[in-house]
C-alpha cells in the first residue's frame, strides 16, 4: 500500500508529508516534520505531552492518524510564540517557575492556551480539571495552576 | 586517640568488636590501622565505606584529618535518587 500524501496547515504554514496509515499525527510531527516540541510520553492519550490543537480543538496528537488531517489546521507548541514575543502563558510559566524538567511543559502550554481561548476567567477547579489530562511528575501542579491563573488575570486586564 | 565505631555489618568481620581507640590522624591512617588489626576488613574499607568524623559524613576521601579526640563512625556509603 502506497503512503498517504497529506497536505495540512501547521502553525500557519502549508505542509505536505507522506505517511503510513498507522503513523500518528505525533509521529508525523516529530519524525516527518521535525517538530519535536510535542513529546511522546505514553502513546495512549494518558499523559498529554503531545497535546496540539486540530481545527482549534485540543487533542492528543498520539490519538490522531496522520492520514486524517488532510486540509486541517494544526497548532503546536512551536507556533505559540509570535516572532520574538512569547505568548503570555509562556512568559508566566517562566516567571512562576512552573516547570522543572520541562518535558510536560509544551503539552501544558498548548492545553492551557486552548482553555483560555474558551474561557478567559476560569476558576482554580476548572483549570485543574481542564489540565487533568496533562501529567506532570515534578511540580505537584501548584506553580503550573498559579501560572495559568495569573496569565488569565493578566490577559483579562 | 580517636574513638572509632563500626556501624552495622562491619562488626561481624571483626568478630563482634565494634569499637576501637586508634592513633589515626587521617582517614588513610585509620584504614591502614584497621586493616592491620583485621585484614578481613581491608576489602570492605576499599569497597565503599563512609566515614563520619565528629558528626560530619565523608564519602570516598582518604585525606580528611582526624583529631586526637575525634569520634569516628564507619558507616555504609549513601547514594540517593
Amino acid at each position, binding site marked *: 500500500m502506497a503512503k498517504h500524501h497529506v497536505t495540512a496547515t501547521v502553525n500557519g504554514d502549508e505542509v505536505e508529508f507522506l505517511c*503510513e*496509515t498507522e503513523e500518528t499525527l505525533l509521529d508525523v510531527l516529530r519524525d516527518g516534520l521535525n517538530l519535536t516540541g510535542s513529546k511522546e510520553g505514553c*502513546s495512549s492519550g494518558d499523559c*498529554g505531552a503531545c497535546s496540539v490543537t486540530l481545527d482549534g480543538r485540543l*487533542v492528543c496528537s498520539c490519538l490522531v*492518524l496522520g492520514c486524517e488531517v488532510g486540509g486541517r489546521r494544526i497548532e503546536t507548541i512551536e507556533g505559540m510564540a509570535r516572532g520574538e514575543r512569547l505568548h503570555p502563558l509562556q512568559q508566566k510559566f517562566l516567571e512562576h517557575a512552573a516547570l522543572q524538567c520541562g518535558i510536560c511543559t509544551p503539552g501544558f502550554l498548548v492545553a492551557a492556551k486552548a482553555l483560555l481561548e474558551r474561557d478567559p476567567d476560569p476558576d482554580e477547579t476548572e483549570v485543574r*480539571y481542564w489540565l487533568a*489530562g496533562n501529567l506532570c511528575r515534578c511540580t505537584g501542579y501548584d506553580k503550573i495552576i498559579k501560572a495559568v491563573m495569573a496569565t488569565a488575570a493578566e490577559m483579562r486586564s | 586517640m580517636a574513638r572509632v565505631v563500626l556501624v552495622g555489618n562491619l562488626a561481624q568481620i571483626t568478630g563482634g568488636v565494634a569499637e576501637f581507640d586508634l592513633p589515626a590522624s587521617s582517614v588513610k591512617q585509620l584504614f591502614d590501622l584497621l586493616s592491620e588489626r583485621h585484614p578481613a576488613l581491608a576489602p570492605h574499607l576499599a569497597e565503599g565505606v563512609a566515614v563520619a568524623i565528629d558528626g560530619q559524613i565523608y564519602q570516598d576521601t582518604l585525606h580528611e584529618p582526624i583529631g586526637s579526640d575525634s569520634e569516628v563512625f564507619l558507616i555504609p556509603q549513601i547514594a540517593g535518587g
Partner: protein
Amino acid sequence: MRYEAPESFETAVALLAGAKGDARVLAGGTDLLVQMRADILDPELIVDIKKIPETRAVTEERGGWRIGAAVTGAELKESARLKKAWPGVVEAANLIGSTQVQGRATLGGNLCNGSPAADSVPALIAAGAVASVVGPKGRREIPVEDVMLGPRKLSLQKGELIASFFLPPRPKGSGDAYLRFIPRTEMDIAVVGAGVSLTLDGAGKIGAARVSLGAVAEKVLLVPAAAQAMAGSTLDQPAQERLEAAARAACRPIDDKRGTVEFRTQVAGVLARRAALIALERARAN
C-alpha cells in the same frame, strides 16, 4: 493497512462488508489507536466515518434528539439545548478521558469498543437511547442495551456500523444523571458506573424510570428491578434502600486490577442512589 474515508454510508458499508481481513471503523480513535499501538489490533482496513454527514450532526428530531455516532463529547457539551434536555448523557460523554480525549472520543466509539466500563453507555441506556445501524441489508434500529453482548462482543453483523443515536423526547418533570467511581478525580476507567433517568408523575412521585449499571457485569446492564424499587416514591429513605439493594442484586462483577467484587457491588448501590437523587433534583427543576 488501508485507510478509507468514505462520504456515504453505502461506500462505508461496502468497504466494511468487502474487507478480507480485520476491518475497523474509525470515529474518534481514542481506543482504536491505542490498541493498534499496543499490537492488540492490526487491522487490514480502517474506515473513517467522520466524512459522512449524519455521523457528525446533532439535530432535534420528532421532539427528541439525533446524535451522530462520531460526534465528540466536547461537541455535545457545546449544544446548550441538548445539555438541558439530557444533562446525564452529556456529562457521561464528558467523563471519557481528558479534555484532549473529549475532543476526539465519540458515543459510537465508546459503545463499539465493547467495554462494560464505557462511561457514556449506562447514561444512554438509562435514557432509552436507540442506535440506528446501517449495513448491507439497510438500516435497523437497536436499543443501546442490546448492542453489546460481552467484552469486545457486539450484536452488529459484518458490514454494519452505527450511524447515530436517537434520544427520545423529554416529558416535563424529567431528569437524568450519570455517576461513576474512579480512584482519581479524572483519567481512570470507571470501576463502577450508574446512569438513572426518571420522570415524575402528576403527584411529584417517580413514574417512568430506567437504571443502568456499568462495570459490574460482562456488559452494561439495564436494571428494571432498580427502577421498580423507586417507582411511585419520592426517593425517601426506604426507597433509597430498596434502590441500593436492587442495584447490588443485579451485579455480577469480577475481581481485577481496578476493583474487587465486593467493592463494585457495594459502590454500585451507592452510586445508583446518588445518581437517582441528582436525577430527581433535575426532574423537579424541569
